[in-house]
């Protein structure tokens, strides 16, 4: 691959331009959150004159942000845990036992990856209503669990299949039950796969706003994304507070990303590439 003198710098320019387009709005969001509204209107592009947390105070006065945050955290963590439990059991069964229906079971689960579940939202609404789960965080927890199952099973099954069986067989000789083998022998060995599955599903449930939009109307049961919706509806005058809200709701994800960026990027593409 030979390059002329001009190609390399040209490539760098292009890459920098696109990287700036990607980053600039996010930086602008964070910087603006430290400015009072009138400063945003006057100098939208400049650095804040002084870092004040005033806008954050305004935000917290206007909406029950901490409640939203708490709801989001409960929903995301619970659904990720449920996904890990249900799918590691199911994937273990599919990958390690050879009943004739196992392949059918596998395809049954994979089907869910090709069909957008949004299309079933009307019956889902009816189901949630009949189960008395509307305006309950459980509606979201069940939804995210169900939605996460196909991809998680695909990833975990793939991982189980590449794992050696010796340890499991040794444990079985010692009379360990299947559940014990899965819990004590297999799961500790598959931390990377578990991490990937946890991260994909965490992003998914933390950021989703379609299901809470439909299932949740109670102000105190809203998650961050739908909570933000009301902010923009009613208080659209205070830009500083708006930026503070956007920053605050993205912060957990961005912090997590910088702790485990590799896992994030691998996780999100795992489903597509495998």
């Amino acid at each position, binding site marked *: *691959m*030979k390059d002329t003198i001009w190609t390399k710098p040209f*490539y*760098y320019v*292009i*890459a920098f331009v*696109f*990287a700036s387009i*990607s*980053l600039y*709005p*996010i930086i602008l969001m964070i910087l*603006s959150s430290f400015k009072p509204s009138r400063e945003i209107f006057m100098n*939208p*592009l400049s650095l804040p004159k002084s870092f004040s947390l005033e806008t954050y105070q305004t935000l917290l006065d206007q909406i029950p942000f901490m409640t939203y945050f708490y709801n989001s955290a409960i929903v995301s963590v619970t659904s990720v845990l*449920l996904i890990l439990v*249900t799918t590691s059991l*199911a994937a273990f*069964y599919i990958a390690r036992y050879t009943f004739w229906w196992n392949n059918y*079971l596998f395809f*049954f689960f994979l*089907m*869910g990856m*090709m*069909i*957008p*579940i*949004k*299309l*079933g939202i*009307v*019956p*889902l609404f*009816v189901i949630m209503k009949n189960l008395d789960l509307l305006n309950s965080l459980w509606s979201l927890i069940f939804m995210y*669990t*169900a*939605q996460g*199952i*196909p991809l998680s099973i695909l990833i975990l099954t793939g991982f189980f299949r590449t794992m050696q069986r010796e340890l499991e067989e040794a444990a079985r000789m010692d009379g360990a039950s*299947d*559940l014990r083998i899965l819990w004590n022998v297999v799961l500790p060995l598959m931390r990377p796969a578990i991490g990937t599955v946890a991260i994909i599903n965490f*992003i998914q449930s*933390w*950021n989703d*706003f379609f299901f809470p939009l*439909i299932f949740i109307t109670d102000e105190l049961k809203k998650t961050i*994304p739908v909570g*933000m*919706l009301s902010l*923009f509806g009613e208080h659209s005058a205070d830009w500083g507070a708006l*930026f503070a809200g*956007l920053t605050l709701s993205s912060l957990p*994800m961005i912090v997590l*990303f910088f702790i485990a*960026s590799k896992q*994030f*990027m691998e996780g999100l*593409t795992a489903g*597509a*590439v495998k």
Partner: protein
Amino acid sequence: MELEINKKLNRKKQKRNWKRWAIHLFPVPAIIVYGLFIVYPLLAALSYSFFDWNGMIRGDFVGFKNFVNLFTLEPFSGFFWNSFGHNIIYFVVQLVFQNAIAFFLAYLIYKKLKFGEFFKIALFLPRLLSVIVVGFLWKLILNPNFGALNVLLGKFGLENLQKAWLGDPDTALITIILVNCWFGIGFMLLIFLAGFQAIPKELLEAATLDGAKEFKMMKTIMLPLMIPSIMITTVLTFIQSFEAFELVYAMQGSQGEPYHSTDTLAVYFYRLAFGGSTGDSTAIGLGSALAVVLFIFISTFTALLLKFMQKKEVEM
């Protein structure tokens, strides 16, 4: 004594039987949750589409009436074809501005550009934001009076480019799609990058020794080997384009403002199923019919796309 042993054996056998039976419980929780909240609703949506609905109460079986109305009865058919066209534009623009650019940038990073890791992270970062945050953030940036974009254009002396991007029916749709590209480009880039990295190095080295120029190498060696990644990204983009809802809803509301110029099938579906922000009544039967049409459309074209690209792969 003998009885005792027998008893013991029996108990052991029972225990083993139980163990053998217990393993079949393993997939049950997943099947229940997935069956109840994914499979059943999709099947139910199909059955809903064949009935008349009065609010949330089911009426008579009406055969294909809902489907016929969806395609031919105004204003429903007008909304349908209008948003269908927008979905097609969504798909095409994303292919060009998201996937083609992502492909090119992935190639640059693959060619061991310095700071490759930084570029990767920078381009991926928007993907971490919730779509609603993306929508609101850009709504603020694109604000005609105080938004950063118009101010920035002014600073560069490009006043004549300043616009009410989201308020003008001519630019609103394309603006939203470009915001969607901003959000999704890093994800596509990662898929392409994984594809490039999977190309066997020996092939490229051999070609370099034979004196192949960069463009030719791209065309004859890399592109054919990249077909699987191109296939995945195209199919994903297709599905996403026809599902497009969140961003339009966040930026332009459930009516696809201004004047339905940003309406998509999924937004229209939401309106039919749950009523719009303007207090339209719900139309469950029509909404379900639309869901079924969308489902058939998405699955058919996904299958066709996959087939077409697989054939291409073999030819090359």
